[in-house]
């Protein structure tokens, strides 16, 4: 049966970490003397209290985690983190409604970046930084973050890792998971610092550059301005954002091999990376053409906004520098496809992932060849490795679940009266942790505040499932999970 004690214990420890994160924002709020200081202090207090209660519930637990508990732990962690994470919004009264506050927080942790706030600029700095912080931690995963800091926290941390990591192939770059986690977080931190420095040099303020850098590398999409990066009207900032979004959408293991081991050949020959690059190139070319023909943009402007929007959507970041609502409808289709596919596995991005597209394409090719050669044994190759048959089945099951989930959400939203174009893009956006939606009712730059309450809860669930790649969450709702041994 499920060993709840260990789960309580781990969650207790994790809540202390969350409290520590909040403390940073508290410090910022108190330092600036803004009106959210008290709300943060109370939230920290409540979070620590929560942590203590969980710790107490999980006292004298044995430190071993089975597969079952790992899945439950990961899902619960994300739910509870978001629950405590919405306290500052609620208490300060900036988001008085619980549904909205929870939605905003889970949108942060899952790096979706859709917001119910109509006016972000009204928030105090501490609150803005808290939003950014949730995305940055959520970028690589809350539990994964913990494994990097306290490898000894969880007994079966490899199981936890596989429950939280994204992508079909989990490559370790070091025999020990703790070391792997440290390396990946170092790369992540390095990217963030480099991105912040570039933003600063391009002319952003200190607070802004930190916020934008953290949400860019997390491929999250929260921003400190209503007009997102478009606020700056600065091509340097746009190109910096494009570069770092693109890098954050690359597999971190691949970046590690390239930067620290100098394997540039591997970088170029990686089939996932090549598809990623190809998709960005094709989508940009199409959008640029449409923008030039349809909206009379000059070439360089078209390239800048086109490339920006494509990288933003394919890396599932969701920041914008132009209002895509004004663009031709075909661009929406292209961007929706980008949203669906997403960037590389092992990065901070969401979506279906390029590597899965590579695999599905190969499976399709083989199926067609098999019609002509019924007895042929055809391998599905990804980077010279053969994908075993069982993984192919898992992959197709995931595709079915992903598409099914999107369609389910789409129908639910239509039945509550949301505009159909919005419905499908919101479904794709949430499942892929992208952020913006495209459509007639809600534009990509607008907030989602007007959605009905039920839909917001549905989307919160969808974002979580999208982040944890569906099965981790769905397995908890099976009878077998709770009943069988």
């Amino acid at each position, binding site marked *: 049966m499920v060993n709840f004690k260990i789960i309580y214990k781990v969650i207790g420890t994790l809540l202390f970490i969350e409290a520590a994160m909040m403390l940073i924002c508290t410090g910022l709020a108190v330092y600036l003397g803004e009106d959210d200081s008290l709300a943060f202090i109370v939230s920290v207090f409540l979070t620590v209290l929560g942590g203590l209660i969980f710790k107490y519930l999980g006292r004298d637990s044995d430190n071993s985690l089975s597969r079952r508990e790992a899945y439950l732990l990961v899902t619960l962690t994300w739910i509870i983190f978001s629950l405590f994470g919405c306290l500052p919004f609620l208490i300060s009264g900036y988001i008085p409604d619980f549904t909205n506050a929870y939605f905003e927080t889970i949108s942060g942790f899952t790096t979706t970046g859709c917001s119910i706030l109509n006016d972000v600029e009204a928030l105090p700095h501490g609150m803005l930084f808290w939003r950014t912080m949730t995305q940055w931690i959520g970028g690589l995963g809350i539990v994964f973050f913990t494994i990097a800091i306290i490898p000894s926290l969880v007994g079966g941390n490899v199981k936890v890792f596989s429950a939280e990591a994204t992508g079909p192939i989990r490559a370790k770059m070091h025999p020990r998971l703790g070391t792997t986690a440290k390396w990946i977080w170092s790369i992540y931190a390095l990217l963030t610092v480099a991105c912040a420095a570039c933003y600063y040099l391009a002319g952003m303020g200190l607070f802004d550059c930190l916020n934008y850098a953290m949400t860019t590398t997390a491929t999250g999409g929260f921003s400190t301005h209503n007009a997102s990066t478009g606020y700056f009207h600065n091509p340097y900032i746009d190109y910096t954002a494009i570069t770092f979004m693109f890098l954050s959408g690359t597999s971190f293991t691949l970046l590690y091999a390239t930067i620290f081991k100098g394997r540039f050949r591997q970088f170029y020959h990686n089939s996932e990376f090549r598809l990623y690059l190809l998709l960005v190139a094709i989508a940009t070319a199409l959008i640029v053409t449409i923008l030039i023909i349809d909206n009379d943009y000059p070439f360089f402007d078209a390239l800048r906004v086109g490339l920006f929007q494509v990288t933003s959507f394919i890396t599932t970041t969701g920041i914008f520098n132009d209002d895509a609502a004004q663009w031709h409808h075909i661009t929406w289709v292209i961007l929706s496809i980008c949203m669906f596919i997403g960037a590389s596995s092992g990065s901070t991005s969401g979506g279906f992932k390029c590597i899965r597209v590579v695999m599905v394409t190969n499976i399709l090719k083989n199926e067609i060849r098999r019609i002509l*050669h*019924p*007895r*042929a*044994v*055809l*391998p599905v*190759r990804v980077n*010279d490795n*053969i994908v075993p048959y069982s993984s192919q089945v898992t992959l197709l099951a995931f595709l079915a679940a992903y598409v099914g989930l999107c369609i389910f959400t789409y129908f639910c939203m239509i039945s509550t009266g949301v505009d159909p174009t919005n419905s499908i893009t919101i479904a794709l956006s949430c499942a892929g942790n992208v952020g913006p939606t495209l459509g007639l009712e809600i534009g990509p730059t607008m907030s989602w505040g007007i959605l009905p309450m039920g839909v917001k809860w549905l989307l919160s669930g969808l974002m979580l499932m999208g982040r944890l790649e569906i099965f981790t969450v769905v397995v908890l709702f099976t009878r077998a999970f709770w009943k069988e041994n």
Partner: protein
Amino acid sequence: MKIVIVGAYAIGTHLAKLLSRNDHDTVLIDSDVERLSNISNDYDLMTVLASPSRSKTFKEAGVGHADLFIAVTPDENMNLTSCVLAKALGAKRTVAKIDNNEYFDPKIKEYFEGIGITSLIYPEKLAAVDIANGLKMSWVRQRWDVHDGALTMLGIKLRETAEILDQPLKDLCKPESPYHIVAIKRGKETIIPRGEDVLKLKDIAYFMTTRQYIPYIRTIVGKERYADVKNVIIMGGGATAVRATALMPEYMKVKIIETDEARCEKLNELIDTDRVMVIHGDGRDLQLLHEEGIKNTQAFVALTGNAETNILACLTAKRLGVRKTVAMVENFDYVSMAESLDLGTIINKKALAASYIYQMMLDADVHNIHFLMSANADVAEFTAEPGSKVTRKKVFELGLPKGTTIGGIVRNGEGMLVSGGTQIEAGDSVVVFCHDIEMSRLEKFFR
């Protein structure tokens, strides 16, 4: 010369038989009574019944005085370890049979030499080289290159279309003509031709020529209309098939038919190109062959472990219109039978391995030696040392033993054909064709 062989399996026994005939002191070590008793009764050699992994065994067998130590058990690691041990005990040269192509990497090879393994032998690879060469020139039965093709020897089956039939060779091959016929295989007989001999229908003629005249040879034997091999079907996906596909040129599309499904999956891991398709099925299944386009296939290569299957499958393929067939026949008794069935190229790994090991028996002057099983002859390349017999007289005055003929020489990297009046100089690489004669008798001419 004292030779110790470990492992009385196919290659080991075959080698032991060959070597004991040639007056070498041969010791055969194996841990199995039956394998040894099969050979010890009929051949003049010593057998040692003991585990090859024990140093006591090695002392008993006198490995310390061995000039050549050959480890040919099926266990690669045992072969490598026993070679290291033998070298440490004092064996002069060691040969290990391996089944891993990566060991041929120059760095690893150097390392192996450092720890006492002089040479590696990988019979599947030797077979693969022969197969790939044969497919590259589908109209040729056998091809052997000297000095990267400066000189080439071609074994060609003569059919009705050949222009050179029934003419005395003295009219055909003048000293200035661009080829030299070094041997003729007629039925079961191998002839070292003299001026009055003629080529007859269905002979296999061995031509020695230089690279630029290969198309000319193709014309005179009437094989221009042979289609180049583009599509290949290989039956049986063993190690030989894997290596052969790796060696085939890019333009060849290969289908490997394998009966074991797990092996099919494994093949996909081992072979990493898109031009190879692995098919699960039986290569003797006619319907499958039709479905996979046997009509549009130029070469059929049968590489299963079963000689009978290979022979029958090749016959079937011939009947279906495949011009070039290659059969792996491991059973020596079947080789001549397969030849008489006009099966095309016959591959025998044992013979290939044995001929390769011959090289090590002779001194370092022999660079390259190739055993032509069908003609029961060796072609070897010797380097003429300064002051050696061959450099002192013209070729026709040398008095080379019966059954040998000089095919050509490579001087300063350039291939030349040899006539009676040619003077061999020191430093020349001399290609000698010898039928039914021991190589060591030739050595003294070159030293």
